[in-house]
């Protein structure tokens, strides 16, 4: 078992004929992902590595059951590609694009909310967006819809991993493998200020997932997603959660790489995040290796 994706997930690659799109489509296939085709407007009818290329997502969904779409499109077109997938009814959209204007993401998130209201009234499941500016998802050993290096996700295991950071996700996954714990599903939610799915959206899925026994949450400074996650954990989670927060010594007002990693006044401070985790009874690792130790303590 895993959350959001699994061995049967059929994946579409938007921007498949671009350099990044082609590279990662191949890497996903190597991992075991069922890629069924790709989209590049204007290149419909072509084929790549045996995959059919369509002009639009709508055309692709006419030919395949699409469970998820992953977007490799330059930041200026990423919002449009996301909406294209959403309006075609693709239930899971993973947006990799780095550098999208924040206003574009605001509008995408707003439109998805509307669309999901309508879907709810029609009895359809909601459309979920992961990212942008995220590494995607891996269901260890089954399916990857993302850009994570395959090697760190070879050990299916007991721990659900959620992170705002790419490299730290890989490092955490490697640590969990080494510690013999392994990962169940890994979700990189992305480092932008406005994103489709937050910690608090993913935690309930892990809580309900039989394959997940504990959760590692890798947060960072900026915003209040970690605080919201802590509130959710305190109120609803029975499985143990261990957190790590990066940027704890970053100065105020400086954007630390990620557009979302910035302390503005008293918003997004590490103090607030650490206090929220403490209130929720979530142990926070001071260093990455400490994560495994804290987990071992928490797990039965």
């Amino acid at each position, binding site marked *: 078992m895993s959350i959001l994706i699994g061995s049967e997930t059929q994946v579409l690659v938007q921007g498949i004929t671009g350099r990044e799109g082609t590279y990662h489509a191949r890497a996903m296939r190597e991992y075991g992902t069922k890629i069924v085709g790709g989209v590049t407007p204007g290149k419909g009818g072509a084929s790549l590595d045996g995959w059919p290329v369509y002009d639009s997502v709508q055309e692709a969904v006419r030919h395949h059951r699409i469970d998820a779409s992953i977007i490799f499109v330059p930041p200026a077109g990423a919002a449009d590609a996301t909406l294209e997938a959403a309006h075609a009814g693709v239930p899971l959209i993973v947006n990799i694009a780095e550098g999208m204007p924040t*206003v574009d993401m*605001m509008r995408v998130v707003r439109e998805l909310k509307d669309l999901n209201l309508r879907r709810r009234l029609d009895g359809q499941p909601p459309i979920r967006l992961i990212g942008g500016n995220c590494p995607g998802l891996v269901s260890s050993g089954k399916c990857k819809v993302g850009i994570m*290096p395959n090697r760190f996700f070879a050990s299916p295991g007991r721990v659900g991993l959620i992170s705002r950071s790419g490299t730290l996700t*890989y490092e955490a996954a*490697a640590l969990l493998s080494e510690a013999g714990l392994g990962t169940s599903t890994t979700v990189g939610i992305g480092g932008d*200020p406005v994103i489709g799915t937050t910690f608090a959206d993913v935690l309930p899925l892990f809580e309900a997932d039989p394959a997940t026994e504990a959760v590692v949450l*890798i947060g960072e400074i900026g915003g209040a997603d970690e605080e919201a996650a802590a509130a959710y954990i305190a109120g609803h989670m029975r499985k143990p959660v261990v957190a790590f927060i*990066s940027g704890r010594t970053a100065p105020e007002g400086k954007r630390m790489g990620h557009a979302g990693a910035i302390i503005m006044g008293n918003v997004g401070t590490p103090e607030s995040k650490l206090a929220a985790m403490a209130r929720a009874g979530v142990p926070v690792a001071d260093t990455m290796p400490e994560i495994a130790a804290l987990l071992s303590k928490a797990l039965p």
Partner: protein
Amino acid sequence: MKLHEYQGKELLSRYGVAVPMGKVAYSPDQVRAIAQELGVPVMVKAQVHVGGRGKAGGVKYCKDPDAATAAAEAILGMDIKGFTVKKVLVTAAVDIAKEYYAGMIVDRNVQTYTLMVSKEGGIEIEEVAATRPEAIFRLPVDPVAGLRPFEARRVALEAGLEGSLSKIAQMMVALSRACFAADATLAEINPLVVTAQGEVVAADAKVDLDDNALFRHADLMHYRETEAEHPLEVEASNFGFAYVKLDGHVGIIGNGAGLVMTSLDVVNRVGGKPANFLDIGGGAKAEVVYNAVRLVLRDPDVRGILINIFGGITRADEVAKGVIRALEEGLLNKPVAMRVAGTAEEEAKALLADLKTPLIRMYPDMFAAAEALAREVSA
């Protein structure tokens, strides 16, 4: 991208925000000419990318052109928190009846802009937020429809703003329009002034633009002032690095924003002080790493470099090659503590182990690397 007050006012006024007449000037003579042209009492205001101008004496009320010239002489060249004042805004002084605050900010928690309005204008909003959060009224702004007049009126009424309700609401709507149209991450009118005549004007403006959206605002690029940024930040941005100059002595290079932030944390934890944040991004080749090392070394504050790599898409051996090139070209004159792990870790370690230099040392984890380097550079 941060805008100066005069740039922010120019931008906001395009979308209908009323601002006092004014012009930017670079010399006392220009200031005199502008003050004469305006023919009314003026404010002479330092244009620097830093807060606290007023307290530093960078803002002066001048009743006539002579006073304005004298103020310009005092302010131009002044040092405000390390920034030299090179230009001033000369603007008609307004006849203030009320001073309010209105700001729009990208608010991650509501996934759109939040409009913030307060009766307490003119002072630092962070101060109000910290001490009397109930004095700030907030409204998430629909990112498709933008702020509507009825919403603006509602917030103004709730915040207790008095007089000229429709004009205040119009200004907020214009502010919202400007934010969406120009991709601002922050836009503050502080103070938002109601004059004795019932007019509503923006007496000051602070606007930050979304760097990710600059590609669609060619018309705003002339606002960029490379001189205002740290020269190394300018150079780093030419290389495409996410680089932030900090005030310590330990240079930091890593791959991935999270990992570099964590490296900063570790250095601080062991008693060191980071000199910078530098993220080489994903999949960097040797050349990129070489440039990163050169850039960090050009910072005279740097006494040593921590290189923290967890190879994912980035190959650790490419990182090693970049560092070795810097060494071979004789550029490396400071100690480098390296932690390499992940993809191509073995290859990287083999390359580095061959080196016969005391300058480059490998450590099994980032903590050990940071600790050794911090000890060395503070010795």
